[in-house]
């Protein structure tokens, strides 16, 4: 194991900001953030539809606001084929709804309220993610 590209300060700062977003949503609207749930319910449920859509629009506006106040562009790199991305998107869409949460719903909101169910889900998807990356690298 080599440790590379480690950015603990920006990671911690960004995480704290995410934590505040979760707390604000809970304090004012009484709901816990889980993005796969919000996104999926925006598509399939009538209840809280507008709230869910507005949250998703906020997620997209966030990076745009960030670039207005920062000189540097946000750079991301994705080195996958189209087909692989489509397949991965399907897995993420189906998996998060079958298990009832994703990195935010289980990993932050669930663990934050000490839910055993969410702790088990988070450990499971992290281990499978690690194995997937390992297999991808050796194949």
């Amino acid at each position: 194991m080599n440790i590379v590209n480690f950015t603990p300060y920006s990671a911690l700062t960004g995480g704290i900001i995410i934590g505040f977003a979760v707390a604000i949503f809970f304090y004012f609207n009484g709901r816990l953030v889980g993005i796969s749930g919000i996104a999926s319910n925006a598509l399939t449920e009538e209840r809280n539809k507008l709230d869910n859509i507005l949250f998703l629009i906020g997620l997209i506006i966030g990076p745009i606001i960030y670039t207005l106040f920062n000189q540097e562009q946000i750079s991301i790199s994705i080195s996958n084929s189209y087909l692989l991305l489509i397949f991965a998107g399907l897995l993420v869409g189906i998996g998060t709804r079958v298990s009832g949460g994703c990195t935010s719903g289980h990993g932050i909101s669930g663990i934050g309220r000490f839910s055993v169910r969410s702790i088990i889900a988070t450990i499971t998807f992290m281990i499978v993610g690690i194995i997937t990356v390992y297999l991808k690298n050796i194949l």
Partner: protein
Amino acid sequence: MNRLISLISGIIFGIGLVISQMINPEKVLGFLDIFGNWDPSLAFVMIGALIISSPMFHLIKKREKPIFANEFNYSDNKNINKQLIYGSILFGAGWGLAGLCPGPAISSLALLNIYSILFVVSMFVGFYLVKLLNLNSIR
């Protein structure tokens, strides 16, 4: 007002994803690459989010009700079942393949790149399939 809060929470969450670099799939894949070139940063994102959201959750839920809603509304599902495990496995595999989970994927739509768009569209197809085929209640 709760509509505005939904939008603002989404925006803050999105900014947190950018600052923490969780929006960058390369960063996520680096975190999952424990056996190769490991980038532990994303553990700090979770720590940062949890040190804020967890104590706030436990403080806020003692209140009678949220500010702009009649009651707190979050899942208190305690079932550790097959769906939780199978769903998390599927999600972990997709996450490890693409380096994208629902929040960052939706936020990265702001960058208007074809990869994010493809991933998000197929993720929504996945959400819809679960609803259509009732995959989350299969025994």
